[in-house]
């Protein structure tokens, strides 16, 4: 019964969010600070959840997310630039070799598929590694991708180290919200299926999982490919949001940021990742902005406040969370009605016990 209640509660929340997004789209300026936070929040929460699927639910410590976002973003951009604009985008490469374009939705799906396909390929060798070796190998893979996409010889396809632009993008918040919501819903459904439970079994104890008849190699590969699929879609959304894309920007620091978001939200909690993403971008882009501008109260110049201080404070907060609140916001729990009720009941009990 509680499961059904929880589902209804989640659906109501989702419906409320859709209405809220529709209202915000009509009332707020599209380039305002709040919109930036919300749009980035939607895009990165998808990427964070995809990373959590791998790191938090399957226990595969991968640091290749930026690489897969790069592949997704580039696939989307390459396939969807209108044929008429190709000559101007690929001006150094005679209009490039791709001379057709596909609609944006097909581009998004292709972005995911190409990412997943490459993940399958790289997974063949890399997934045999364990813990930190896997981390460093996937990090290396992301760096190789970054170099590869900037290679001049591939210029007719990737435009070398020049940026890609003029592909279809979005202006409303509704678009990234809906895409991210659908993808995250798919991930949640996967996690709750028997297939997803196998992932969790692998995370908790590989040897026990294998003894229970779970095909380790197959499940690890699937988790890696599925995670990369959604990272690819996230990369495509990011490309749409930025309206231009350049391989140079997909550094390992991007992966680190996403990893920190996942850790703040709680490894193994989808809702945690989503909440943490919005908090992360709200804090770094909006709430802590004041730290970046000098402030004078009366005759007193508040010390330390100048450009860049925001990021310092921010990273100190992150370190504190990593050190002292290791469970993150949600631990490995999910946000739900029954969870909320339990929390209230416990609070009340504590209050009456006093």
């Amino acid at each position: 019964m509680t499961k059904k209640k929880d589902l209804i509660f989640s659906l109501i929340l989702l419906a409320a969010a859709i209405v809220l997004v529709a209202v915000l789209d009509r009332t707020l300026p599209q380039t305002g600070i709040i919109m930036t936070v919300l749009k980035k929040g939607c895009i990165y929460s998808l990427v964070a959840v995809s990373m959590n699927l791998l790191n938090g639910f399957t226990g595969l410590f991968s640091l290749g997310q930026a690489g897969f976002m790069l592949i997704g973003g580039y696939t989307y951009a390459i396939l969807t630039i209108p044929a008429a604009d190709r000559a101007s985008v690929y001006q150094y490469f005679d209009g490039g070799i791709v001379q057709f374009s596909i609609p944006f939705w097909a581009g998004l799906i292709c972005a995911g598929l190409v990412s997943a396909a490459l993940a399958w390929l790289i997974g063949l060798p890399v997934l045999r590694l364990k813990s930190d070796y896997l981390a460093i190998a996937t990090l290396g893979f992301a760096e190789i991708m970054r170099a590869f996409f900037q290679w001049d010889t591939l210029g007719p396809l990737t435009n070398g180290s020049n940026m890609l632009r003029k592909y279809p993008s979005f202006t409303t918040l509704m678009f990234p919200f809906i895409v991210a919501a659908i993808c995250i819903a798919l991930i949640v459904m996967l996690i709750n299926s028997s297939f997803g439970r196998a992932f969790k079994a692998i995370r908790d104890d590989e040897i026990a999982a294998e003894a229970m008849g779970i095909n380790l190699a197959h499940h690890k590969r699937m988790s890696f490919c599925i995670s990369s699929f959604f990272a690819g879609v996230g990369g495509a959304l990011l490309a749409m949001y930025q309206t231009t894309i350049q391989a140079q920007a997909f550094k390992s620091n991007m992966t680190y940021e996403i990893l920190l978001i996942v850790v703040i939200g709680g490894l193994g909690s989808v809702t945690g990742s989503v909440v943490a993403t919005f908090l992360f971008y709200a804090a770094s882009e909006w709430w802590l902005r004041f730290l970046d501008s000098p402030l004078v109260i009366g005759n007193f110049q508040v010390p330390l406040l100048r450009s860049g201080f925001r990021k310092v404070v921010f990273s100190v907060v992150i370190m504190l969370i990593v050190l002292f609140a290791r469970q993150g916001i949600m631990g490995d729990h999910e946000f739900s009605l029954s969870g909320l009720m339990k929390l209230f009941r416990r609070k009340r009990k504590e209050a009456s016990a006093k």
Partner: protein
Amino acid sequence: MDFWSKNLPYLLAGVSVGGQYALIAIGYTMVYGILRLINFAHGDIFMVAGLVTIYASTVMPLYLSIPLTILVTVILGMLIERVAYKPLRNSPRMSVMISAIGVSYLLQNLALYITGGLAQVYPTIPFISNTVTIGSATTKVVTILTPILMIVLVVLLIQLINHTKIGMAMRSVSTDFETSRLMGINVNRVISMTFIIGSFLAAVGSILYFTNYPSVIPTSGGMPGLKAFVAAVFGGIGSIPGAVIGAMLIGIVENLIKGAGWTTFSDAFTFVLLIIVLLFKPTGLFGEAATDKV
């Protein structure tokens, strides 16, 4: 003959860069040997050392600023271990690694704040910045000095590890953490010592490395750090001679690739090497095979 005269400058640069990577790689390999931790912040400690030299040399002469750089770097390395890694000693290895990534993020943002996002011009250090001509190549003295200094330091370090009490404690802790503790070895002191040595070598490496570059930016440490780590893995993590050989190889091949006109791939090569090594000899050239106990 033609090959030699054409590639000599790149070869020299490779040997030099390799020596600098080796100095960083030793820090990685020692920390990994003892704590089983990829110290992601090590590359950033290296970058901070570069910045300290820059700021110190604006207010004091070089013979003071260089020792100061080394001192500050060593203290920083120790401090990071105390604050960010020690509280997590009994947590899963991944938590410590995440903490290391957090420290790296913090150091970069701190550097960004202090420098104001501007590239800081590295001071010209007399003597080692002078140019010399060897055969067909013109290069700086630092190119010749790096491998020599590196070898001297490595020999000293190996003496320290093989013939002193603290060295013996280090070997013992890296073999078996728990048993060493039971045997009365002060594990925390050994770990601090490891970080001191690692940071010291990183500081020396940074002085040699940045002399070849015009300036330091907050992300300067990232790439050399990762490459040095790959060098450590290649040589077999935990093995100091292995790290040196791995670093030399990466430095030389990387520069030969640059010489062949494939600059875009000089960084990617390192990671291709990493993936190949991990596949065919996961424990590296000189690493000991590890077995998983159920």
